[in-house]
């Protein structure tokens, strides 16, 4: 089933919204140029939305702000938010709040822990905020897993649309940086000591530059006025993805094994890597999809990000496939095409 991306919202270390991402891509702004690899929530603040989530943590605020951008035209557009489903996807969830709650439990005892912190420590809290703030009445769930969380969420969205559970689906991917995340990454591999992300570096094991951010897509089963591209395929470990004009590889230092990326860069089709723009994020595929949307709609180019030198150039691709591999060299892919 074809799905259409009919709304896009994002925030990351580069700033908020498509304009700031386009600027970061055009200026080749990378992780090493930022003082902090956190989202500037004050700059991203939306007064109308923030008044409805005073008690929310960073994780939820990032999610809600990105959804706010993705559906900013919903009052004038032809889709109905009430008939929309929500799939929030994450690898680590609101772990700063979760571990903050556990810290309080140890420090103050069970009688003196913050009930608000407890209620926000569950993975589904952010999805609930989205549903409540945007008055969404469709199904709401959270997909929390390490292995290809974004592609699993999009696959689930397709299933909901095919089975007419709702008319549209908001897929929101969000990942938060924090001490626990950094420690987990550092145990499995190495964190770059100069914030330089060298995503394709076959001579040594990858080093990660943990960052954070949120990306939201409004997926519709029909083409509407705000539709900007279509998702023609999404799935796992399939050769169907070989037919494309260009690849965006999700290589970001996680995992260190780059066998899959080595294989794909021997392809004559251009392979681009944008992770230095947004950092090492388990849900980074969502950023790649967002960038693919921008390239397909001619907002930015990709030549500076091609990593396979033998690649034949394609001036304006009509189809881009975002691929991400894991430590088992399994891969997930999403193909996007122009309308």
């Amino acid at each position, binding site marked *: 089933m074809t799905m259409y991306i009919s709304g896009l919202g994002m925030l990351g270390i580069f700033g908020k919204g498509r304009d700031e991402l386009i600027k970061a891509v055009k200026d080749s702004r990378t992780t090493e140029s930022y003082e902090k690899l956190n989202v500037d929530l004050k700059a991203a603040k939306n007064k109308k939305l*923030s008044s409805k989530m*005073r*008690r929310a943590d960073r994780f939820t605020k990032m999610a809600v702000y990105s959804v706010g951008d993705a559906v900013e035209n919903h009052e004038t557009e032809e889709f109905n938010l009430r008939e929309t489903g929500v799939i929030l996807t994450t690898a680590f969830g609101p772990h700063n709040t979760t571990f903050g709650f556990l810290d309080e439990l140890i420090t*103050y005892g069970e*009688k*003196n*822990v*913050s*009930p*608000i912190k407890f209620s926000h420590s569950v993975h589904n809290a952010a999805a609930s905020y989205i549903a409540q703030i945007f008055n969404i009445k469709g199904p709401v769930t959270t997909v929390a897993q390490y292995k290809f969380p974004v592609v699993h969420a999009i696959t689930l969205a397709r299933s909901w649309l095919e089975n007419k559970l709702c008319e549209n689906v908001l897929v929101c991917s969000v990942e938060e940086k924090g001490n626990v995340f950094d420690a987990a990454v550092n145990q499995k591999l190495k964190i770059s000591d100069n914030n330089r992300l060298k995503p394709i570096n076959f001579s040594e094991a990858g080093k990660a530059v943990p960052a954070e951010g949120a990306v939201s897509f409004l997926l519709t089963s029909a083409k509407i006025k705000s539709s900007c591209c279509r998702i023609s395929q999404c799935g796992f470990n399939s050769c169907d993805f070989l037919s494309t004009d260009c690849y965006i590889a999700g290589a970001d230092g996680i995992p260190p094994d780059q066998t899959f990326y080595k294989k794909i860069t021997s392809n004559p089709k251009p392979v681009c890597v944008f992770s230095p723009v947004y950092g090492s994020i388990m849900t980074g595929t969502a950023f790649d999809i967002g960038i693919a949307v921008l390239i397909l709609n001619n907002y930015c180019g990709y030549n500076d990000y091609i990593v396979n030198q033998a690649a034949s150039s394609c001036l304006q691709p009509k189809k881009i496939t975002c691929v991400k591999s894991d430590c088992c060299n399994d891969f997930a892919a999403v193909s996007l095409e122009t309308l």
Partner: protein
Amino acid sequence: MSNVNELDELREQLKKLIVEALSLEDIEPDEIADDEALFGSGLGLDSLDAVEIYVMLQRNFGIEIKNTSDAKNIFYSIDSLAKYVQKHRKK
């Protein structure tokens, strides 16, 4: 330290603790008037905030309010809260 000075300091401390515990991002502690109603028409706090204030009092001052019917008067304003804390604090 005189009781009056101690009460003033407590008021300031409570304002800071409340702003922090309740994530009142748009309010500076000194914007809260001593006699302003914390709930309802005043600062606009609600019952969930009351639970957080209750936890904050336990953590910082060792105060446990066992009779919940008293809470309405104690939690009315910064002034009433400070007077109660001054009288019942254990730390």
